[in-house]
């Protein structure tokens, strides 16, 4: 049987005395597109930071590509778009094309030939090709997010970790990004793990949806998610929107 791209067993983490993750189990396989939902502060971004070795767990085991995270070094295989990536481009004098080309860094250094074409292709995927020569600082928040996504896509990684990449992106473009990620997972067998608040698109495009609550994951079936969504929309209609699912 093929090894899981990420395998997490019995993972616990706390900030001081506040327990955030409690005995959490998780896996993602090649070619899967997994959506991660949960309310603000439920620990989604903390989980991502643990996967990227930015935080150390209190207990439990994380394996990336079959290797214990303590020994894992090959982070080039992971493409990552951070939650705060919009802030990165503020006042930075670089063109969109230059930023996306940064994603071509590999163990041989930056691509010497073909980097420009690859970057333009990735920009086309996210609908930003006509902005290639614009300054990143002159783009809107949603446009910057799409540039960061293009930078992650150009890296030819085996695992894409995206922390709310469609924040500030309009619904039509957001749907296009979900479709693109779905195709990336199906055609190139890339594992895609995406933290999102957009349950509607997640239910339509993701192969699995996990809800993080009370420190652990609950796998939701599409029917469960639709029920939740209906309940959520009902509350919005009644003017009781209390945030996302």
């Amino acid at each position, binding site marked *: 049987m093929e090894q899981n791209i990420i395998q997490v067993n019995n993972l616990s983490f706390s900030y001081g005395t506040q327990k955030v993750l409690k005995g959490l189990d998780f896996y993602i396989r090649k070619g899967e597109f997994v959506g991660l939902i949960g309310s603000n502060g439920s620990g989604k971004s903390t989980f991502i930071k643990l996967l990227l070795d930015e935080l150390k767990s209190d207990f439990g085991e994380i394996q990336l590509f079959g290797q214990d995270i303590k020994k894992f070094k090959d982070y080039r295989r992971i493409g990552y778009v951070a939650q705060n990536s919009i802030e990165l481009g503020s006042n930075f004098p*670089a063109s969109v094309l*230059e930023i996306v080309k940064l994603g071509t860094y590999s163990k041989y250094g930056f691509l010497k030939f073909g980097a420009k074409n690859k970057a333009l292709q990735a920009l086309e995927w996210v609908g930003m090709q006509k902005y290639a020569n614009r300054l990143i600082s002159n783009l809107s928040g949603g446009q910057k997010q799409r540039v960061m996504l293009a930078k992650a896509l150009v890296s030819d990684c085996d695992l894409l970790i995206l922390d709310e990449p469609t924040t500030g992106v309009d619904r039509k473009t957001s749907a296009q990004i979900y479709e693109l990620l779905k195709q990336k997972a199906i055609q190139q067998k890339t594992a895609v793990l995406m933290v999102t608040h957009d349950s509607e698109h997640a239910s339509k495009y993701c192969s699995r949806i996990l809800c993080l609550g009370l420190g652990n994951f609950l796998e939701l079936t599409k029917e469960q998610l639709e029920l939740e969504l209906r309940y959520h929309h009902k509350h919005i209609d009644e003017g009781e929107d209390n945030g996302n699912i």
Partner: protein
Amino acid sequence: MGIFEYIFMRKAFLVGILIALIIPCIGVIIVLKRLSMIGDALSHTSLAGVAAGLIFNISPVLGAVIACTLAAISIEAIRKKLPKYSEISIVLIMSLGIGLAGVLSDKVKSTASFDSFLFGSILSITNLEVYIISGLSALVLIAFLILYRELFYITFDEKSARLSGVKVNVVNFIFTVLTAVTVSIASRTVGALIVSSMMVIPVACSMQVSKSYFTTVIFSVLFALGFTILGLFVSYYQGLKPGSVIVLIGVISFLIIALIKKVFPLLRKIKVTKEV
């Protein structure tokens, strides 16, 4: 007699052009990392190295290089420990540098040599110093070109660069040493009190007009070259301190560019309104 008939002026132009090539390369990274004050901290610390060099009878430039390198490594180490308060590390090291420079300068016999480092003395550079400055400038320029994209990546997003496999710690360390070397040799030529201005002003001018990171670097170098060459001419014919004139030309140029950038769109708006 023409300006280039004097050997000291030919040396001044050679060294000035070399400094103008390397300072903006380092300055771009410093400005974009929002560490503009680091130039001040290092140049003040370089004075302590200069004083130590004069006391122990070794080359003051070499003394400045050693002191600056130690200071830059210390700043980087403190910045790593307190990433959210990086300005504290700069102020701490600057205070230490100024304190040491003050104490050591009392022990220096030739105060004229020490004072020449405050405002620079590009016109009185010795042949040995020309060789040292040429060698170090070539080293800084080559290292900057080799690490051009790695430095760009780290400056834009250190976390992503680390994840992509860029050896962030190694590149940051090399850059720290390059900064120290650049500040030391620039202190000798344009002066310790002016180095940080030379690091920041060409980059600030360039950021007003450039449309990419690459053009920001190129324009920064061109601005620095322009300020230096013009500054040397003006200082020669007016009998002024070259370092100070170079910086003043930079500041005036920045103000003119900023003004043009503000006024041009307004003029265009008025023209369009009139046509309508």
